[in-house]
């Protein structure tokens, strides 16, 4: 597969997504928007996981920082949209720098457990600080500046930009640094890379991707609940990235879309959609160990001979 084939497939995919609403109901457009945001989240998560080799089990905290930051600004504090976005970014940066600085003292399972602990700590605070976060009930009445159809294109534009940015980042010296640290951190250090700084930069960029996804998610539903901060959502972020394929930016993006696609169809088919989703995920473990993008690559390679 040629090197820029990934770029072409991304552009093709985004093109398909641009015309998809023409053939969809209102309900499907809403789910497609969620699919885009899941895809964006997976791409951001994969910068840290696939490219830098760090498995975070707490990325729900950054999606939540974005979603809650924006909603608290708009609904609780009565700020205007720009100020609310600023608040959400500020909150995300504080959370990302603090948890990143601490969690990155370790790697592997200890890093995963630290991120899990911090994310659950934030979940616990969201549940208990009712005056600010609404506790179990979350925050309602988040304004959406436009109709669902237009909002889809706003989301698509931002997602397209950020996904292509990720494609570019992993090809810059910074992104190559991520991969050097992933493959062999002591060798990376010996050629002069500041390993802990590279990891922190990757962590913060990754967090910002999740935060943007969360910020775009809150007005879509006009309401948020603490589920988005619970560990199961962190797990879903990991899972959809893996089913797409962790080796490429496009793989992770497809993973988010596939996850929603399976959900939509399983829900239409039966009330036991989780069972269907679980069975499909389990089958993918054996059929597509490199993710769905891995299969696509294999097929393309075979066709080309």
């Amino acid at each position, binding site marked *: 597969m040629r090197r820029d084939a990934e770029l072409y497939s991304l552009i093709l995919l985004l093109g398909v997504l641009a015309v998809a609403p023409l053939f969809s109901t209102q309900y499907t457009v809403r789910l497609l928007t969620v699919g885009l945001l899941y895809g964006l989240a997976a791409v951001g998560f994969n910068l840290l996981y696939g490219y830098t080799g760090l498995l975070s089990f707490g990325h729900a905290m950054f999606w939540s920082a974005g979603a809650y930051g924006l909603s608290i600004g708009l609904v609780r504090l009565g700020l205007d949209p720009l100020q609310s976005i600023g608040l959400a970014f500020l909150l995300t940066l504080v959370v990302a720098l603090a948890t990143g600085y*601490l969690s990155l003292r370790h790697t592997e399972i200890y890093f995963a*457990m630290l991120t899990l602990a911090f994310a659950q700590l934030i979940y616990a605070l969201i549940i208990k600080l009712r005056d600010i976060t609404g506790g179990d009930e979350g925050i309602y009445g988040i304004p959406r500046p436009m109709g669902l159809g237009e909002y889809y294109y706003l989301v698509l534009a931002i997602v397209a930009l950020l996904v292509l940015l990720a494609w570019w980042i992993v090809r810059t010296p910074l992104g190559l640094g991520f991969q050097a640290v992933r493959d062999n951190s002591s060798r990376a250090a010996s050629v002069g890379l500041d390993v802990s700084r590279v990891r922190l930069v990757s962590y913060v960029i990754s967090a910002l991707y999740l935060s943007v996804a969360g910020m775009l998610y809150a007005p879509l539903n006009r309401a948020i609940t603490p589920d988005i901060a619970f560990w199961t959502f962190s797990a879903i972020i*990991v899972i959809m990235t893996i089913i797409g394929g962790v080796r490429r930016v496009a793989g992770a993006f497809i993973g988010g879309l596939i996850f929603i696609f399976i959900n939509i169809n399983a829900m239409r088919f039966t009330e036991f959609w989780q069972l269907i*989703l679980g069975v499909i*995920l389990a089958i993918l473990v054996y059929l597509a160990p490199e993710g769905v993008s891995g299969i696509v690559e294999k097929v393309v390679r075979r066709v080309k001979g």
Partner: protein
Amino acid sequence: MDINLIVVQTFNALFYASILFLISSGLSLIYGIMRILNLSHGALYMVGAYVTYTVVILWLGLDWFSMVLGYVASILVVGALGILVERILLKPLYGKSHDLQLLLTFALILILDDMVKMIWGPEYRAFPRLPGFSIPVGEFQVPIYFVFTLLLGFSVAIVLHLFFTRTTVGKMIRAMTYSPEVASALGVNTDRLFALSFGLGAALAGLAGGVAVPLYTASPGMGTEIIVLSFAVIVIGGMGSIKGALVGSLIVGFSRVFMVMLFPVMEIALIYIIMALILLVKPTGLFGMEMRERR
């Protein structure tokens, strides 16, 4: 503070710690030996809860004897389920990327949650109070069921301790926790021990569900909260250590129950603060040893 309340809450904390210990010891065992983060461990606990519920409430009737039979059924059913999962689903993944094990154990949560919904329905299943659940002594109510649970938890801890220190199989399992290569070179059949360990871990989760169900109503998805607290337990105590699971359970149980009284905002938060502090100061936990991923 009222002394009576402190006594009651101490019982609550000990009961909660016993349940946590039963779940976490299995989780810790599986991680220690197989390096698998079994995300579905909470779902196995849920299945255990429903099995005991079925045996006691739907089949035999509410008394202590059927409770014990319910536990036995939970241990057998969930233990067998664990062995099946290990032999059929996990075995083909050994030596491959850890991603796949995460994916598979997460898929199992979705599958088991919905299967429970199919079999028992989506609604909560209340468990009427067991006769002799608590007995009045003077002006106090002594919660017999809590005392019983505590004794059960301690007995399991002692049995596990003897199993790992006195029996050949137990020693082999411990040897594998330290170094599977060396254990294997010494002639230990690692394949069979993996199945045994996963089955044993699952059986402990099943028992935990059976013990918990009279207090914590059975419902689909009841495993998702307790599993993450069990992660906190094994991280605090040290992954792979039974002693660690015991001490970790007591820390988590007491900090939760007493924070509800003293400072409710911190009810759950304190647990994760302790978890993070332990990881930062002593990542191997109070009683654990270093766990490196095997590739």
